[in-house]
């Protein structure tokens, strides 16, 4: 095991967690990410690869599926696969081996930061953050959107649990935007 110590996207030694207005806002760092994109003509095989790994159907457009291991749709025949970092630290290598020439797999774990918002009036929070309409949405929705000029994924894991996955280098700005919105809820 290597001897490097990691830091979180917010630059700390441990993930940050804050509760404001009944909403728990937490930095999540225990998930590995890898992108899976089907090779030309291998769309069904790639889908099967994702599905086999997450033990659930590969998500359709705008959706998230799976539980312990999961995936969300990022584009036509493209998914982002999530798995516990503890057991799948080198997720991309693992998937790449399974994929052979069916799909292109790229390590994405550290390309992103993830913040979860749980409880409270999330509809009110998200309507001042982005055009994603949580009133109409449901569990399992996955939407690419823009939050304070940052391209983000908004994943509805549970009715009252939403993950925002955004660019890691702007984690501070994104967290500030989320925190400000949570504080602004009336």
């Amino acid at each position, binding site marked *: *095991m*290597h*001897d*490097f*110590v*990691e*830091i*979180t*996207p917010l*630059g700390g030694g441990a993930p940050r967690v804050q509760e404001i207005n009944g909403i728990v806002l937490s930095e999540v*760092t225990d998930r590995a990410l890898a*992108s899976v*994109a*089907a*090779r*030309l*003509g291998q769309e069904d095989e790639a889908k099967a690869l994702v599905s086999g790994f997450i033990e659930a159907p590969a998500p359709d457009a705008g959706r998230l599926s799976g539980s312990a291991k999961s995936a969300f749709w990022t584009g036509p025949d*493209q998914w982002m696969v999530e798995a516990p970092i503890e057991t799948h630290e*080198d997720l991309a*290598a693992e998937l790449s081996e399974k994929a052979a*020439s069916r799909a*292109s797999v*790229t*390590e*994405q*774990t*550290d*390309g*992103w930061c993830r913040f979860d918002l749980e409880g409270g009036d999330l509809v009110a929070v998200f*309507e*001042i953050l*982005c*055009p*994603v*309409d949580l*009133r*109409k949405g449901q569990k399992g929705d996955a939407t690419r959107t823009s939050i*304070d*000029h*940052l391209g983000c994924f908004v994943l509805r894991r549970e009715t009252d649990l939403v993950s925002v996955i955004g*660019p*890691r*280098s*702007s*984690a*501070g*700005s*994104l967290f*500030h*935007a989320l925190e*400000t*919105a949570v*504080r*602004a809820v*009336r």
Partner: protein
Amino acid sequence: MTQVNRLSGGLIDRNAPLSFRFDGKTYQGHKGDTLASALLANGVRLMGRSFKYHRPRGVMTAGSEEPNALVELRSGAAQEPNTRATTAELFDGLEANSQNRWPSLAWDALAINDTFSNFLTAGFYYKTFMWPRAFWEKLYEPIIRKAAGLGSISFEPDPDQYDKGFRHCDLLIIGAGPTGLAAALTAGRAGLDVILADEDFALGGRLNAEQFDVGDQSGAHWAANTVAELASLPNVRVMARTSILGAFDHGIYGAVERVSDHLARPEAGKPRQILWRIYTKRALLCAGAMERPIGFENNDRPGIMLASAMRAYANRWAATPAQEIAVFTNNDDGHRTAADLAAKGVTVAAVIDTRENAPKTGSYEVLAGAEITGTQGRLGLRSVDVKMANGQTRRIACGALGVSGGWNPNVHLTCHQRGKPEWREDIAGFVPGAVLPQGMSVAGAAQGIFPTAACMMSGAEAATDICADLGAPTPAIDLPSTEDAPVNITPFWHVQGAKRAWLDQQNDVTAKDVKLAHQENFVSVEHLKRYTTLGMATDQGKTSNIPGLAIMAELSGKQIPQVGTTIFRPPYTPTAIGALAGRSRDEDFRPTRKTPSHVWAEEQGAQFVEVGMWLRAQYFPRPGETHWRQSVDREVLQTRNSVGICDVTTLGKIDVQGADAAAFLNKIYANGFAKLPVGKVRYGLMLREDGIAMDDGTAARFAEDHFVVTTTTANAVPVYRHMEFVRQCLFPNMDVQLISTTEAWAQFSVAGPNARKLLQKVVDAEHDISNEAFPYMACGQITVANGLRARLFRISFSGELAYEIAVPTRYGDAMIRKLVEAGKEFDAVVYGTEALGVMRIEKGHAAGNELNGTTTALNLGMGRMVSKKKDSIGSTLSERDGLNTEDALKLVGFKPVDTEHPVPAGAHLMTKGDPVNAAHDQGYITSACYSPNLGCHIGIGYLKSGDTRLGEVVRLVSPLTGLDHDVEVVSAHFVDPEGERLRA
């Protein structure tokens, strides 16, 4: 202070008294009051001074269309000028001041302008300040600027926060008057997802301002009960204090919700206002109508107001502008004001009706076929002169006059996408045209339907139609019976012969100004508007445009619809710039990107620089260094002498995979990539479609079907976008997949003669990185720190023996610490972007300054890199004659002949002996620095036929700064031109 003009009844909360100040004086009002209603209740009619002539003015309306009663609200940084007293909701401690007066509202020195009104007519500025020409900037403009404007600003940053938000609905109902409420009830009960928005804080529109009943309850009660039912429905969102500002594309509406304007201060963390973007399937405009005034002599005295406003003040706010009032009307609705105020105990001196057949509506006197020919009262109305039907004149004492010239449907939002309103003779007003913004319908008074019962019916029917369109079953709604009086109007725009009949009270435009504009041939409505300023400023002519058009029609012998209206544009009402900015201000103006070594760099006291959104370490000052050059020179020398480390994560990284990855890169890059062996890196130049250089970088081949492309920091996103375009649109049949990995890997450059020795301490021993095993331009997957996966590239931007090493970003912090620790024995230095820049200029490497969107591979000295053996993007157009002239610019280096001289970037090059002018321009310096290795300033840049002029001395000039000295043309490779170091 007693509220001398407070009446009985009304919708104010008499159990909630509020104290406020106007022009330093304390008054009392009630919850539910506006500033205007509270001032009227306190006997204050004079509220402002007009823009140009500083005429005393009072409140004219009871809504957002107010042109006169503009005040400065609050104080200090929160001071807001030009706020309408008619929409300012009263709160305890509210502080307001009148504006555009000195020294006081009652005695204003600049009222002298009024005396010179004969000169200050339309076009006065255009005609008067033409000569002498030189006077404009130094004399006229400063004086005019000083006198111009209404309110003043604090010059302090806005202390409040604003949010931007997004809402979605099936149906947006704009306006919560009788029409909007009936529509919302229909659609709400049918289960549509409805947003009902109204700019007022009390919903109900005119129902709150009238005395007639709706069913068996008062209009206000019916409105309140209906709103309560709507609020209880989970599918209906009621948004009070929300102005719909504009109808935009695809059914999107802009709205401002005034969240905290009715509070002394917003609650901590809460916004003052929210700018909403509302996405709708359908919208129903129920914006009602606005009453319009009639032009007559001196019709602008405080106390003269719209009859509907006077009625609203009495009925809703229990306030009257005076105890004795009169009404001037051309339609039946004006009589309702007289009746309502009489019922409240106010003396109605007379109703002056321009119609011969005026109805007799109450116990007060009605003067049929009469006109008002003049008014008296400097700071407030005392009396009006009436020309009777029989030609006699009568003076009637009154403290206030309600004026009704008919009603204009609020068509504004129907025209935001260039719809043209249509004229309806029976109501003498414009109604929405046939072409409406996508998904919009109109109902009620906004449609030209004025009786309340018909409005409600119209709203319910429109909602039913929309429900049917959207597939929602509509239960029948039982609408209560209510006022159903027909419209009875005889158009009457202005009293003939009046010299100063004010049309646009905000801009002091009179009927005479319109005549002058016509006389001078400014007959198009748009010209009329600009020439006279009719309909400009905060109210955008809501009360003045139609009367102005009517007069222009009369003068030009046309019908009003032939004259037409000016274009209606958003926003409907004035909008704070803060609301448009939202949270994107100050340090949050845009996101900040931080590098993986940011925490460490902060600890070192690094000086940071913004590079796009990135914050990069610019240099690392050490104790004793007092000038940035000292730090930068040290970082450069130490790197070239031993080893330097730099965070280069910001360079774009794009993962390219697929069976056709190599073929794809062959299209993207001008040079060949198909034969690049696995484990090797190649420099690549990509061209735009037009043959101009787009970006440069490297591509490393990790497998037959896997490359990692690097881009410049600035072009990381544009290059990725370009590649996606090429993949999806130009070569969809290629098997290639792309994804950005810029942020996923923390990448560090390790450069200098001791780079390998340093890295050998960091890279795990099983990976041989000797020159033989890992030569220049090699790449590979390795491990560091006992097993952490990493990537190593032997590439050099500095010209030194150099590597770039990448680890997963969460270990970037550990990596920089490890490199610094391992480098101690070599006296390793960490360098910032300045030193990076110096070394690349010393080496003659192109960067953004050279790839400036005008230069080609040929200019860069890389003409031969554009492969002719294959087709790549831009290669054909790079062969254009104009890009391949004999004397084409070539990238070369420059050294000052006198080594003390600077070489500023941007300076131009001239052949010695030639005149210094554009025609003789030979080129320009693109990048320059002080080279601590050469001990002088150096530059690189483009010179005509530069590659054949090495050794020539040319003039470096900057006529703007007076720079003019000699520089020698040299190779751009100042350091190690043979490239021995980087292969060492």
